[in-house]
Structure formats: C-alpha cells, structure tokens
C-alpha cells in the first residue's frame, strides 16, 4: 500500500507539490491526470528518489517503509518502479546487460539468487514476445536511437521483468501507436493482482479504456483537487480542467 500524506516538495525556491494526499491500496490502479506543469512528474520523481527536490513537508510510505528516507536503489528493491516520461539514453550500455544487472541487483537486495546470462535471456525473450517487441531491442544500447514509442515500450519491458509491487507510469502512453497502446496496456494488466498497485499518469482517457483504473485523481498546481471513479476521466475529456481549477 502506498500512503502519501500532505507531501510538499520544491525545486530551488519554487514550490511544486503543495500537500499531496493519496492512498493506493494493494491491488488497485489509480490514474492521475492534470494540466501540464501541475507536478505529476515531480510527484513520480520524489517517490522514486531523484535528486534535486527538497521535501518540505509530509510523508510517503510504501508497505510501511518510509520511501523518502531510502536511496533510489533501495526503493526499487522494495518494489517501486518508475516508467519515465522521458526514458534516458545510455550510450555504450547494452540493453540486455542493463536489464540483467538491474534484475540481479534487485534479486540480490531481496535475498534471491542471481540469474546467469542464459537464464536471463530466456526470461527476457519470453517477455519481449509477450510485448510483441523486436528481438534486437535487447542487443541495442539502452534507448539509443530508439523511437519515442520504442523507448516507452522498453520501459514496459523493464517493468515486466522487474515485476514491481508499485508501478508509476508517467505518460507511458504518449507516443505509442494504437497497437502499442494495447500491448503496453496488456503488459500492465498482466501484472494486476492482489499485491500489485499502480499510479498511472496520463493526459488521455483512451489509455484508461484499456487499463481500467479503480480511481482517477486530478492533480493541479501541486495538489489533488478532485478524485472520482473512471467516469471522472470521461468528464475531463469532455470539459477539460478549467471548471475544476476554479472549484
């Protein structure tokens, strides 16, 4: 369970999150929508431990662990996974080597045995097939020369292999073609279960047709200003944020 209480954070002297309250119980998927610059990515970065943010108040616990006190790698080992809005290119680092190193680091931290190259490749090939991705995805350097959509799919591949307990997907649907959107959604839905929860940040109701959320929240100017069921997304699609922000 993810419990965010009154979370405030700033960059430099600019306050971005202004008291976010959000609880995502195990087994649930929550969507976060909201205007550009509202602080959605900031929230996902603060939860995953990126440097450069000052948490000025509040807390974030995952399964009882104080996320904000943990190193990013410890958060990953605890099961937190962020699919980046802008996945990072790593020239000179092979994708297979990267994902295997990540998987083994997480397994080590959890006291599980490491996978050798052969066992990993078997696992990775199956995941790639399930996500209908080209095989050479593993051979290339991480995200280097990947199209926008390929980068997003690579995030989902990592998620499928790392099997997180809490996935934060930051606009993973942006840049995906119609088929890829379905495939990626299936990837998320395949992880659904009593021990999996997700925060899905998106601008488009369309994604939520495929991954039906339990709740939809609207984040604006650093606060959750409205929460509701999946129908809230439809309402936003029809009327935009203007009316809400005034409320």
């Amino acid at each position, binding site marked *: 369970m993810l419990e965010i209480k009154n979370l405030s954070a700033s960059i430099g002297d600019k306050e971005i999150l202004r008291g976010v309250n959000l609880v995502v119980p195990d087994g649930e998927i929550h969507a976060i929508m909201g205007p550009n610059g509202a602080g959605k990515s900031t929230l996902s970065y603060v939860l995953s431990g990126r440097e450069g943010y000052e948490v000025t108040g509040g807390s974030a616990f995952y399964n009882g662990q104080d996320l904000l006190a943990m190193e990013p*790698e410890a958060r990953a080992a605890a099961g937190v996974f*962020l699919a980046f809005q802008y996945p990072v290119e790593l020239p*000179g680092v092979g994708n297979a080597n990267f994902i295997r190193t990540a998987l083994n680091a997480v397994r080590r931290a959890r006291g599980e045995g490491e996978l050798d190259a052969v066992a990993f490749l078997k696992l990775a090939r199956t995941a790639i097939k399930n996500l209908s991705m080209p095989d050479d995805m593993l051979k290339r350097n991480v995200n280097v020369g990947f199209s926008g959509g390929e980068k997003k799919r690579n995030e989902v591949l990592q998620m499928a292999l790392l099997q997180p307990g809490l996935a934060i997907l930051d606009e993973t649907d942006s840049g995906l073609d119609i088929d890829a959107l379905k495939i990626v959604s299936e990837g998320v839905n395949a992880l659904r279960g009593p021990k999996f929860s997700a925060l899905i940040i998106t601008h488009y109701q369309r994604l939520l047709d495929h991954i039906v959320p339990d709740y939809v929240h609207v984040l604006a100017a650093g606060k959750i200003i409205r929460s509701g069921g999946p129908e809230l997304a439809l309402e936003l699609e029809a009327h935009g944020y203007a009316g809400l922000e005034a409320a």
Partner: protein
Amino acid sequence: MTALPTRKLEAWRYTDLKNLAAISFVEATPTKIVAPLPDLGIPRIVFVNGTYNAALSTPPDFLSSFAKVVDESSLPLVQINAAHAHDGATIDVPANIDAGAVMLVSYANAEMPMAFHPRHRVVLGEGSKLTIIEVAIGQGVYWHNPVTDIILHEGAALSHYRLQDEGLDAFHLATIRAQVAEKAAYESFSLVIGAKLSRAEFHATLSGPNATTHLNAAQLLRGRQHADFTSVVAHKAPNCASRQTVKSVLSDHSRGVFQGRIEVARVAQKTDGYQMNQALLLSPHAEIDIKPELEIFADDVKCSHGATIGALDPEQIFYLRSRGIPEDQARAMLIRAFLTEALEPVTNEAARVFLEDTIETWWARK
C-alpha cells in the same frame, strides 16, 4: 648517465620528473613474490624486479635469450634504458605462424627505492600473428623504465594489450617503438590505472603501404596520480591508417595528459589519421591536458582530431539507480560505457574479459 628530461623540453612540458629525480635508486635485486600473479592459462613470461624468472614462467617456444642492447636513440629515457638494460623478453616469431597469445608480466617488490630498465624486443616474420598481454604490477617505491621494440614484417599482425597497474608509489615510464611494414598491423590498447606518475610513449612508423595501427588507451586515475600518453605516428607510405582513441577517467586531483603527433610524409598519400581524446572528469580538481599535432607534407590525406571533456550525467546515474542498481555499480557501468570505443582493438576474448574485469572493479577499489 644521461640526465632525465625536464619540462624545458617540449615533449615533457606536461610531465614533471622532478619527484623522480629527487630519489636515489639502487640497482634492483631479486625478491620474493608477495602478491598473486595474473594467470590466463596461456604461456607466461615473468620478470621480477626486472629480471627474468624461469621458475614462474611458462615460456612460449619463440622466446630467445637476451642480447646486449645497441641503441642510438636521441630519446633520453631510451638512452638511460640502453645504458642499464640487462634483461628483457626477446620474442622472435618466424614467418607465417599464428603464435597465439602470451602474457608478459612485470612484478616489482621494492623494499628500497629501486630502478629497472628492461628492454623487450618483438619481431614477427611475414604474415605471422601474435597477441601479447602485458601486465605491470608491484609495490614500493620503484622506477620501471621499459623500452619495447617491435618489428612487424609484411602482413604481420601484433595485438598488444597493456595493463599498467603498478603500485601507487611507483614511476612507470614506458617507451614503445613499432616498425610496421606493408599490410602489417600493430593493434594496441593500454589500460592505465597504476603508478604515482606514468608515461607511455609510442613511436609507430608505418613504413609500407596499407600498414595500420591502433594506439588506444584508457586512463583511470585517482588521488594525485599523473598519467601521460604520448604518441608519434609517422606515416611514411601511402594508404596507411592510424587510429588513436584515448579516454581518461579522472577523479580526485588526478591529471591526464595526451600528446599526439601525426607526421605524414610527402609520399604518404591517402593517409587516414584519426585521434580522439575524451575525458570524464569525476572531480572539479582533476585536470586533463590535450595537445594534438599534425605535420602534413602530402596533399591527399584525411586527418582528424576531436576532443571532449565531460562529467557523468546525473540523469543517467538516477536512471540506473531507479532500476535497483547501487550507485557505485551505476557509476562503474557508465565509466565502462564511456571507455567502449577505446577497447575496440581488444579482439582477444581472454584479454577482453581480463581488462573489462579490471575496469569494472576499478571504481570500487577506492
């Protein structure tokens, strides 16, 4: 004895030997081995404090006995070496033989400051092939001043991988001179992680058409280490290619130097010369000096030099950490990635694994 070069000499502008000059060295004497020697399961030639050690060696067939050095070089360090050299590996491979791979290990254990000046000689006959994996390790205050002369006859190919992992109080000043005949290839890669002060000075002469050379290196330095990579590539025949990719990873107060000169003679048309220097500064106190020089007398040549200086990208480190990879390992991966192009000439699998392991564990050594 010939005097040590000083910074007044253009070739020594960036590397100051005054700390070396201040030490009085004794002649090296035999010693006991207190560290494990690298073993890749291939023939191994071992020198201990500069003297061949038969008990530790499993020499290849083509190792011959040391012959007295006659040398008229004007290079001060080569002169000093010539005056003192009393041992060294003499490798002589006849024509048309694939001689496999051999390790050349220099181990030093200096209880008192000592100096040794080995003279190695490698001759490959027409069409022959050899891989040399050279490793220099040791402890204590010592000065290792090896000179390696390489003669590659027509179509011969030498892959020369060097790991300079000397003790952190040591001085390592190596001179490598390679004569590369028609269609022959001198492929080298040096990994520099040891010594307080070091220099690897390469002189490669491409003397026949279609001769090629790679003079690549990676310097991984910390503390107050100083490492100098100096090269002079002489293109003396048409259609030759020389490629130098030197990468420096510099932390703390360390300092890297690259001086590379490409000389293209009038006859050396269609020369392809390439130099790339890239430095990764891991500390605001680290320093890199880069001095490329081109001296071109032919009119149809392609010579390029590029240099970049950067730092590790915090976005990349965070991306790796967000996937569960601990910070130190993330840095090591990015350092390894940065070095990729420099490692290109390392085609021998055993050498590659050996060098990559050394690179991957370097960051964690601190």
